């Protein structure tokens, strides 16, 4: 039985806090540099834990659906860059995993997606619009994988969706 206080992920309408995080030993991703395309942030507890494997494998498989909306998917956990690299290679992930490693969990905290008592990120999803504003957020129980249905509905409802994906069948 968990008695920990529930995290409060930043709600829709909030400007997404900017961040710069390592996406590999020699590369970084800055959120504000992705302006102009929707961004999906997937916070998850840890590389290699069996449930996460399923969640990221699922989102990896759904990438073509996200790309119909020109959306960039980013995974974020407190694991370090080498751990992320080994994990990403093993699962053939085709999107960046960002290391919220130093200061530990700072970005997760900024988004209200950190489990202080456990020392790792929540299982939380955010859809950020082309102007850098959070349009949808969702906190899943740590033991339940969220599906991709909520993300797709949120992408569909972004204002300029029609201009970008409206001609797709």
């Amino acid at each position, binding site marked *: 039985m968990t008695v920990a206080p529930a995290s409060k992920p930043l709600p829709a309408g909030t400007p997404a806090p900017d961040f710069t995080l390592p996406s590999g030993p020699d590369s970084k991703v800055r959120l504000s540099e992705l302006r102009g395309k929707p961004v999906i942030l997937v916070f998850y507890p840890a590389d290699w834990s069996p*449930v996460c494997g*399923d*969640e990221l*494998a*699922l989102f*990896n*498989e*759904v990438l073509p*659906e996200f790309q119909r909306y020109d959306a960039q998917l980013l995974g974020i956990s407190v694991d370090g860059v080498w751990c992320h690299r080994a994990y990403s290679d093993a*699962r*053939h*992930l*085709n999107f960046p995993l960002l290391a919220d490693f130093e200061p530990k969990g700072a970005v997760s905290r900024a988004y209200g997606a950190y489990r202080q008592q456990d020392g790792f990120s929540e299982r939380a999803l955010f859809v950020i619009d082309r102007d850098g504003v959070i349009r949808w957020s969702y906190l899943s129980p740590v033991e*339940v*994988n*969220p*599906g*991709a*249905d*909520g993300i*797709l509905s949120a992408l569909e409802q972004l204002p300029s969706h029609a201009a970008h994906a409206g001609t797709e069948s």
Partner: protein
Amino acid sequence: MSRLTPAVTDSDHILGPPNAPATLVEYGDYECPYCGMAFPIVEAVRRRMGDDLRFVFRHFPLTRIHPHAQHAAEMAEAGAEWGKFWQMHALLYQNQQALEDPDLLLYAAQVGIPPEEAVTALRTHAFAPRVREHFRSGVRSGVNGTPTFFINGVRHDGEWDEPSLIAAVQNAALEGSRR
């Protein structure tokens, strides 16, 4: 709450009577070991429920981690063209460790798909769009791993060992028969 989208239609692969009070839908991958574990469990649930259960299978191949899953799903669909979907479905789950193309052709021959049709199916990917359609419906429905079950249209987030799945389906059948 994640709900099955679209609902079960006549073009689905269905076992059991259309008016059954409970409908169990599985999104599965033929190379996924957990789906392999689920296969005999679903069989046991079907035996236990008899005419009170309608079972539906839809494809959800995780192709990046399961390199044989897509072809296996396409071969199952080829089987469906010849009225042999469920025979192929069972063969694939009973032989999860042997899903290379030559194995698939062997199973096709076993269920009675003409060899040249089976070869063509794999070469032209004629059934890939149907598999993709299943996959997309799964994404829409909130599939969150494989296998994912839906009972009377609602995602089953609980355990799916045999007693748990039977209990969940029996509850749904009780509610379903009251409607």
